[in-house]
């Protein structure tokens, strides 16, 4: 049996969205920490909030692209069921899992950014 080369790719795509989420968290956290420790004037979170907003926009866009990819993978072969152990079934299942993880990661990115939306001070 010849293995579909895409199958290997899609395993990587499975962790793409959660990876973006974790990078978004890390960047936001480090930016806020460095900002407050070294750069802030009068303990205002100002610049760090702008940075977090930018990270969030980039992360949501990237996660959107991953979601789109997952959706396509899932819908590609709708003739086949996605819960049987065949190559097609696996493709569809992975596509669906990628889509769901992208949804979860998008919500997580928003939650990670919300503090910067509400809190204006380093205190």
């Amino acid at each position: 049996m010849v293995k579909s080369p895409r199958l290997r790719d899609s395993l990587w795509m499975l962790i793409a969205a959660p990876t973006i989420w974790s990078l978004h968290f890390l960047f936001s956290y480090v930016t806020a920490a460095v900002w407050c420790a070294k750069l802030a004037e009068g303990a205002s979170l100002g610049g760090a909030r702008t940075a977090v907003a930018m990270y969030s926009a980039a992360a949501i866009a990237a996660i959107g692209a991953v979601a789109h990819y997952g959706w396509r993978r899932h819908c590609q072969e709708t003739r086949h069921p996605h819960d049987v152990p065949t190559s097609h079934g696996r493709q569809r299942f992975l596509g669906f899992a990628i889509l769901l993880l992208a949804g979860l990661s998008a919500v997580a990115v928003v939650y990670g950014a919300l503090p910067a939306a509400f809190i204006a001070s380093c205190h």
Partner: protein
Amino acid sequence: MALRIASPTGAVLVVLVAACDGPQSALDVAGDGATRIADLFWGMAAGAAVIWIGVVGLAVYATRVRPGEHSGRTAKLLLIGGGVVFPTIVLTGLLSYGLLLIPELREPSDGRLIVSVTGEQWWWRVRYETADGRTVELANELRLPVGEAVEVRLESRDVIHAFWVPSLAGKIDMVPGRVTRLSLKPTRTGEFRGACAEYCGESHALMAFPVAVMEPAAFAAWLEDQHALAAPPSTPETERGARLFMAMGCGSCHAVRGTAAAGTIGPDLTHIGGRASLGAGILVNDVDAFARWIAETDHVKPGVRMPAFGMLAESDLRALGQYLESLQ
């Protein structure tokens, strides 16, 4: 007492309701912050009850009222709506509301009194700074004027502690090398209790403090008294205690303002006799307790950073106790 509890449910209810008041209850509120938190708690409890009834209702419906197959469409709608969309919306709302509360709970916009509290294993250093710039260092007790927003600045000298007066506000960590902030705005007078809420070593559970919320005039008078130097000993017994205090080296760790004792390692004792408790909220404040604290410090508080003076004679301990008690 002739209280008879008829059923186990009654017993549980009595315990639950009794647990809601007292000097250290987050539901028996006496401050702005605690009020917001209690409102949030009751709102969430009510919401959770409604959701629980809904879920159980659905289960009853599916197993008793209409067993058998349901349409795939309805099932999908329920799964996605109730399992994904609804929780996301509810959690987003709760998170936003919680974040919205934070700025005002942490930093009062109109605070005129600043109280700095430093957590140390296992006691509290407390500094009051009034709007006129005067400061005074006290310890192991917090007094606040009712109706006024006070900015509390929290620090730690050793490990992470947490400052929590459940009746007044939420809790905040005290982190070494950082200043964290909390706004306290008491809404009624009374006696409350605060405690360390982050495990900080062997005597963590013995690190508490009494809190008194007073009328503003009484508070101002009290704070003025705290600025005063220590009362000089007025009886032969307290005079002997004062001499012992210096002779035993207590003054190298403790300050008694107005005397040669100027140590800063331990709590300021200038007005120790007037505090509501002893040893960070663990003993009553009387001569016997002083004697016990000095003679068996490490029994009363394991690991304590003060040596026990068990070698002192009973009469010496009492003289020291009399002296400290006289420092009102």
